[in-house]
């Protein structure tokens, strides 16, 4: 399936990149690429464009579940830490409070929960996004430098099963306002 394609210069082909000037053209284009059945493709924008997730057909991320799980783990970790240190390993009589005094343990429990959940949100986001990834083929494109400035892009990778240099290029060229180029691996 994954035929190796090459660029005009004979270098291995990463995929095709189409550049758009505004959000509306990008969204229209994304809908068409989605409907054409591509899977290994992406849009690149300088800011999160609302409505693009639907236009690309991106499924909702599972990050929330991870964060919830980390929070629950934090609750038990926070509680367990305080219970074990203050009642089992090093009991101390302080201000007439019981060793395990739940109201006094809530602040630390809460902080530990937030710490774990927040760390999970950050690390989970990076992991799901496959970041850090300091090298990427798209960085070879001069045009692509503007993906973090004021241009919008759609990239379709050559490893997409539906990829065909001619047909895919034709699809991208047919999109309103698109400027298409090849990107080498």
């Amino acid at each position, binding site marked *: 399936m994954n035929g190796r394609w090459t660029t005009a210069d004979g270098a291995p082909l990463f995929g095709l990149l189409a550049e758009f000037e505004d959000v509306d053209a990008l969204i229209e284009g994304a809908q068409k690429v989605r409907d054409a059945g591509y899977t290994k493709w992406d849009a690149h924008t300088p800011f*999160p464009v*609302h409505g693009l997730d639907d236009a690309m057909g991106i499924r909702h991320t599972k990050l929330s579940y991870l964060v919830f799980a980390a929070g629950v783990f934090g609750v038990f970790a926070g509680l367990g*830490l305080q219970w074990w240190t*203050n009642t089992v390993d090093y009991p101390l009589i*302080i201000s007439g409070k019981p060793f395990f005094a739940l109201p006094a*343990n809530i602040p630390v429990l809460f*902080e530990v929960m937030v*710490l774990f959940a927040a760390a999970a949100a950050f690390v989970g986001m990076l992991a799901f996004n496959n970041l850090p990834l300091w090298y990427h083929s798209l960085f070879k494109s001069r045009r692509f430098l503007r993906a973090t400035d004021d241009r919008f892009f759609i990239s379709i990778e050559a490893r997409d099963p539906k990829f065909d240099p001619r047909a895919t290029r034709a699809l991208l060229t047919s999109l309103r306002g698109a400027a298409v180029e090849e990107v080498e691996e």
Partner: protein
Amino acid sequence: MSRSTAEAVPALDERIRGEPLVAQGETLASVTETVCRIVEKPHPPRAWYVAFGISAMLAGLLFAMVGYLLLEGTGVWGINVPVGWGFDITNFVFWVGIGHAGTLISAILFLFRQKWRTSINRFAEAMTIFAVVCAGLFPAIHVGRAWVEYWMFPIPNNLSMWPNFRSPLLWDVFAVSTYMIVSLLFWYMGMIPDLATLRDRARTPLRRFFYGFFSLGWRGSNRQWHRYERAYLLLAALATPLVLSVHSVVSFDFAVSLVPGWHATIFPPYFVAGAIFGGFAMVLLLIVPSREWFGLKNLITMRHLENMTKIVLATGSMVGYAYLIEIFIAWYSGNAVERFAFSNRAFGPYAWAFWTMVSCNVLLPQLFWFKRLRRSIPAILFIAVAVNIGMWFERYVIIVTSLSRDFLPSSWGHFTPTWVDLCTLLGSFGLFFTLFLLFLRFLPIVAIAEVKSVMPDAKLDRDVHHGQGDYHGDIPRQHERQFGDPEAD
């Protein structure tokens, strides 16, 4: 009912819609250019050098004072028995409070869909980090033997000893460290796309390496944006209760005790309101000169400043509410010691501090009821400075007046700061401003990607995002047709 009046309704005007968030004429590229230019210019404005020189000197003073303290011990401060907490804890609470506005702007206003936050949140988050750095210093040096600091963390050590989790001072350790870490994550995560922008514009290998390394290979992919936005929302949802908890925990340091004037149940929300109040004043103080120096007036418009002054007014009034309720309940309690604590604040030896606090925190911000003053730069600067002074004095009044008047008159005392106290306070401002000026020089000081996402180019009028308060398209007056037959008929 006749429909003919519908035509008489004027088109949705600026009074309803609000001024645009980004001044007319700005484009996506111009926003990138405006913000990145600040960092890319070979030399910052002269005022930056002057400010940096002064701040760095003061920061040096701080390190000298801390060194002196570590060598000599806490006796170099004015603290005594019974006033065991003096400038150190006052400064700690003051700086932690300053930090709260950052998280309020980045997290709470985000959850409330206040899109105007996008121009100022990066500033405010940076300010949070630096304020928490300053804050963390004080309890650390105040314990005296700073080299055994690690005893406060639950680390197995050679004494087989664990911290006492029932102590509010330990809650502080957890709250402030968690706050520091989460604020850093939030700040850094928000900056990744903007660092990528700087990377893509970089002309020198050093810049390309530095911004490239920290932008982690961000390429604006929408699949990444999707998870990124979810993570941002989750962090905001976590940071919101966190910010409330941090200053609440700080207030517990006082309120769990029996000390008159400290033991009040309103302390947690009252401290949180005060923290946001002081923090916003500090944001204003930092942002007004910055937008002047770095040409950011199109991104940080009068509307942003006015909104911030409104928050200052609102939180200042909440603080005023808390003062009044505290005084009323002190009387209402019928408890002689409580009543004395408050009359002593207002008329005792520290009355000057109390009235400074009331004037700066409650009375002066009331000037923001007037629109003219909300939009006047000198008035904003004046009140922002006043609020910072007032909020410092609030903590000073709470700590010193209550401690100096113990239950037994024989144990009464008086606190007078020493030169070391004063230099340490001054030095902490030096550290704060030094860090902040470095931030202004080397990092994207406005959240470029976020500002772009509320500009007309983002096409928010494309039928999603209605009703979020910053709709800049023309709203068709369809509703007359939609229910042509009024339900009242």
